[in-house]
Each structure stands twice: as structure tokens, then as C-alpha cells.
């Protein structure tokens, strides 16, 4: 195993209620990079993220972070590891009973004994980095979707994590907010010297900001490469994804019995012949 890998995933498998979601994923995520994991909705991307964070235990395979196997750790070790991880949830998941300031201060207050004056400075620095120092006294329910996502980002990086994970960071954002979040992900990663893993299906934004892309379909890695390679890829799955084609290797139709049968047309025709 080479030294500069932060996360290494080997033959990861996960079943949900007997139904396989991940069927043997291999990934190598080097330190300092922003890596996107892409795929259609419900292909197991979020499950993969949860396995890296130790919230789900895979059925088989290994997830290594800093060389240690996450899925063999005890709860206390997982918690120790998570102090060096930040995660941005799909809709921010801000604590609705705390103000913006207290949300960002939450990890600092829970995990450090820093004096209140220092916490204040740290929180204001994080809020300044996402451009929302002016929103410190607002409550989460008075923020727009994009602002909430930025506050959640400030909270995720409050403890200067080595690994930042993003679960669908672009969902439901207008084009301006989307661009802002994209730039922040790149800038924060480089400024903190962190490593980022981003689960998303926004191909155009990802091609601009990430260093490497993995495509997942049906619980397996089907394609991977740097943005330049992906753009010019001849792989049918990647082409369908990049050009947003409705039908292709990912079928438009969910598997179903023949249409005529469902409508009862076949039966009616049969009856007419009698």
C-alpha cells in the first residue's frame, strides 16, 4: 500500500435486507485530492459514504482510512476517527434549535475545552470562509437552501478535518449557489490540505472542480478517470451520463412485465378469440 493514500476501499460489499447494494467496490483516494463518486439515483453512492464514515458495516471487504480498517474498529475508535472527518449532508442537517453561530461552534464545544473567546474567533473565521459571517445570529429556518449548505460546510470543517465527505452537495440549488458551493469545496480542500470525497450526480460541476471521478452503476465501479479522460470517453455508460441521455446502458424503463399484459390488452384479445 503506497503512503499517500488516505482512503482505500477493497472489494466492498453491502447487502440491505438481503438485497445487494454494493457488489465489490475498489477505490483508492490519494491525499489532497477531490474525488467525485457518480452514478444514478439509488446506485449505492450514499451507502458507500456511510461505510467510509463507519456508520454502516459492510457485509464483506475493507475500508481503510489512514491505513486502519474502519469496519473492524470498536465504537470508541470510530468516534476518534470521525473527529478527523467532516461530512456535509444533502440538505445540510443543521441543528434547528441552534443559531448559525452555535451550529458551527457545536463540534468545537463538544470536542475541545477551548475558552469561549477563542471559539468565537474560530467560528467567525469559518463563517467568513463561506461568506456568511453576517448570518451568525440567524436561525437555520430563516436561511435559503444555499446558505444552509454553506453554514453546514463551515460546521463540517470546524475541526479542520483531514477528510471531508459531501453527500449530494448540489441537490436543489440554483445555478449561482451551485457554483459557489463547488468553488468552496475546491478552495476549502486546498486551503485545509484536506482530502474530499463527493457523492453527486451533477456531472458538469464535477468536471470543473474535481481531480478524479469514479462512476458506479449497479453496485460496481464501471468507469473511472480524470475529468479530461471522462469528457472524451467512448465508454457508453460515461457518454450517457455526461450527455444526459435518457436511454442507454442505464435503461429508461424499470424492469416490468410486458406493457400489454399490465393493461390487460393481451387478456382481452385472448377473450375475443374465444
Amino acid at each position, binding site marked *: 500500500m503506497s503512503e499517500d493514500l488516505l482512503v482505500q476501499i477493497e472489494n466492498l460489499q453491502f447487502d440491505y435486507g438481503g438485497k445487494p447494494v454494493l457488489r465489490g467496490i475498489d477505490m483508492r483516494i490519494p491525499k489532497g485530492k477531490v474525488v467525485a463518486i457518480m452514478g444514478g439515483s439509488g446506485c449505492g453512492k450514499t451507502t458507500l459514504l456511510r461505510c467510509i464514515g463507519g*456508520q454502516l458495516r459492510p457485509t464483506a471487504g475493507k475500508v481503510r482510512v489512514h491505513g486502519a480498517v474502519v469496519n473492524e474498529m470498536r465504537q470508541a475508535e470510530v468516534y476518534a476517527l*470521525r473527529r478527523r472527518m467532516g461530512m456535509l449532508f444533502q*440538505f445540510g*442537517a443543521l441543528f434547528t434549535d441552534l443559531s448559525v453561530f452555535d451550529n458551527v461552534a457545536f463540534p468545537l464545544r463538544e*470536542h475541545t475545552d477551548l475558552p469561549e473567546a477563542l471559539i468565537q474567533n474560530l467560528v467567525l473565521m469559518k463563517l467568513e470562509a463561506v461568506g456568511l459571517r453576517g448570518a451568525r445570529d440567524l436561525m437555520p429556518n430563516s436561511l435559503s437552501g444555499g446558505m444552509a449548505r454553506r453554514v453546514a460546510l463551515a460546521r463540517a470543517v470546524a475541526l479542520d478535518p483531514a477528510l471531508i465527505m459531501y453527500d449530494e452537495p448540489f441537490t436543489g440549488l440554483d445555478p449561482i449557489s451551485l457554483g459557489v458551493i463547488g468553488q468552496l469545496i475546491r478552495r476549502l480542500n486546498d486551503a485545509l490540505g484536506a482530502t474530499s470525497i463527493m457523492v453527486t450526480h451533477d456531472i458538469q460541476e464535477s468536471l470543473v472542480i474535481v481531480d478524479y471521478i469514479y462512476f458506479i452503476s449497479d453496485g460496481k465501479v464501471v468507469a473511472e478517470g480524470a475529468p479530461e479522460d471522462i469528457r472524451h470517453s467512448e465508454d457508453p455508460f460515461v457518454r450517457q451520463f455526461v450527455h444526459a441521455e435518457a436511454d442507454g446502458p442505464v435503461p429508461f424503463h424499470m424492469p416490468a412485465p410486458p406493457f400489454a399484459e399490465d393493461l390487460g390488452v393481451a387478456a382481452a384479445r385472448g377473450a375475443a378469440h374465444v
Partner: protein
Amino acid sequence: MFNPVELLRHLGAGVVERVWRLGVASRFFVALLLRSGTALRRYPLTLREIWFSGVLSLIIILVSGLFVGLVLGLQGYEILQRYGSAEALGTMVALSLLRELGPVVAGLLFASRAGSAITAEIGLMKATEQLTAMDMMAVDPVARVVAPRFWGGVISMPLLAALFSTMGIFGGWLIGVVFIGVDDGAFWSQMQASVDFRYDILNGVLKSAVFGVAVSLIAVFEGYDSAPTAEGVSRAITRTVVTSALAILALDFVLTSFMFRELS
């Protein structure tokens, strides 16, 4: 299409499901107790929950207590004066409140006011991934969110029941002495003579403490265990209120039959 085997299978599955859920709730209770250190060490967290479930329930508890006392005064006087013992009104009002009505009615009100709010809050935190987010920040949601709410409820409940009984006795006095004209001295001295501190008052407090544990546990468990959707949270709230009410009434019967031995 009646199928007795299918019916039996359904019944069995229902029983197994409920027993299983009871087991999950018990394990949750043990986990909650084991992780209560934070809630007690960082007491402002628990104080805040005492404010939410205790202080904010005061209005409904005090007003209901007063009205229950007023009704007890009216009905009690009407029955007692048939036997020419209207002076025993104080005894009757105080004993019924301290032994039964205080803990039980305050418990039912507490379940619908504070219990439902706790379930809704925890359920919504779960539905909006706040609990998962906390867990990912290496903060245990059971220790940080659930335990303070549980202990806040456990501490609030006996205090609310005591206030309920106090307001009720005041209401009984108001009707009996001030409006109907029962002798003031007889009302209080009879009460003083017949209410025993350990036998009546402490048993009542013990009851309300047991109800406090039951209602708070049901409320936090239903919230934590709810399906993370709007429908799931609303069903969890309904279950909190219904299960709490049944638990209070059933526990009350068991406790009464143990505490007041000469009844049986």
C-alpha cells in the same frame, strides 16, 4: 374469504412483533441509562429540558388542577352532606388528589403536552438527518439529545404532580369553604388529621416518579425509533400519547394494589 390459519398467523406475528419491540425498548432504556453521564455532568443540558417539559407545562397543569379541585369540591360536598359529614370534605379532596388524581391526571396531561413534544422533536431531528450528522461529528445522539430529555421529564413529572395536587386542594377549598360555606377550621384540621405524610403523600410522589420514568422513556423511544418521514413522525407522536396513557393507568392499578394494602 375467512382463513383461520391465516388469522392465527397474523395474531402470532402481531404478538411476536410487540414483544420484540418491548425488547428493543428495554435495550434502549439500558443504553440510555449507561450513557446518562453527559446529561448529569453537563447539567445545563438537562436544565434546559426541565424548562421545556416542566416549566412550559405549568399553565395546563395548574389550570387543570384548579378545575379538578373545583369539581371534587362540588361533587364531594354533594355526596358527603347526605351523610351529614360535610366537614370531611377537606379529607376527601386531599386524599383523592394526593393518592390518585394528582399523579394520574398530571401524568396524562404531561404525556400529551411534554411527551408528544419530545417525540416530535427527536423524530424530526432524525428525519432531517440531524441525529446522523451529530453521530458523524463523533457526538453520541443518545447521550447528547435523548438522555437530557429523558431526565428532564423524569425530574419535572413529580414536581408537576405536586403542583397539580396543590392547586386541586386550593380549588376544593375555594368551592367548599368560600362558596358553599363548609367550616374553614374543620376543612383544614380534618385534612391535617387524616393525611399521613409517608402513607399518602410519599406514595403519591412515588407514583408520579414512576409515571415520569414511563412517559419520558416512551416519548424518547418513540421519537428515536420513528420512521424518518412526516408520516412516521406523526404516527410516533400518536403512539407516545396512547401508550403513555395506557401505561399510566395500568401502572397506577399495580402501584395502588401494592401501596394501599388494606384496600384488598
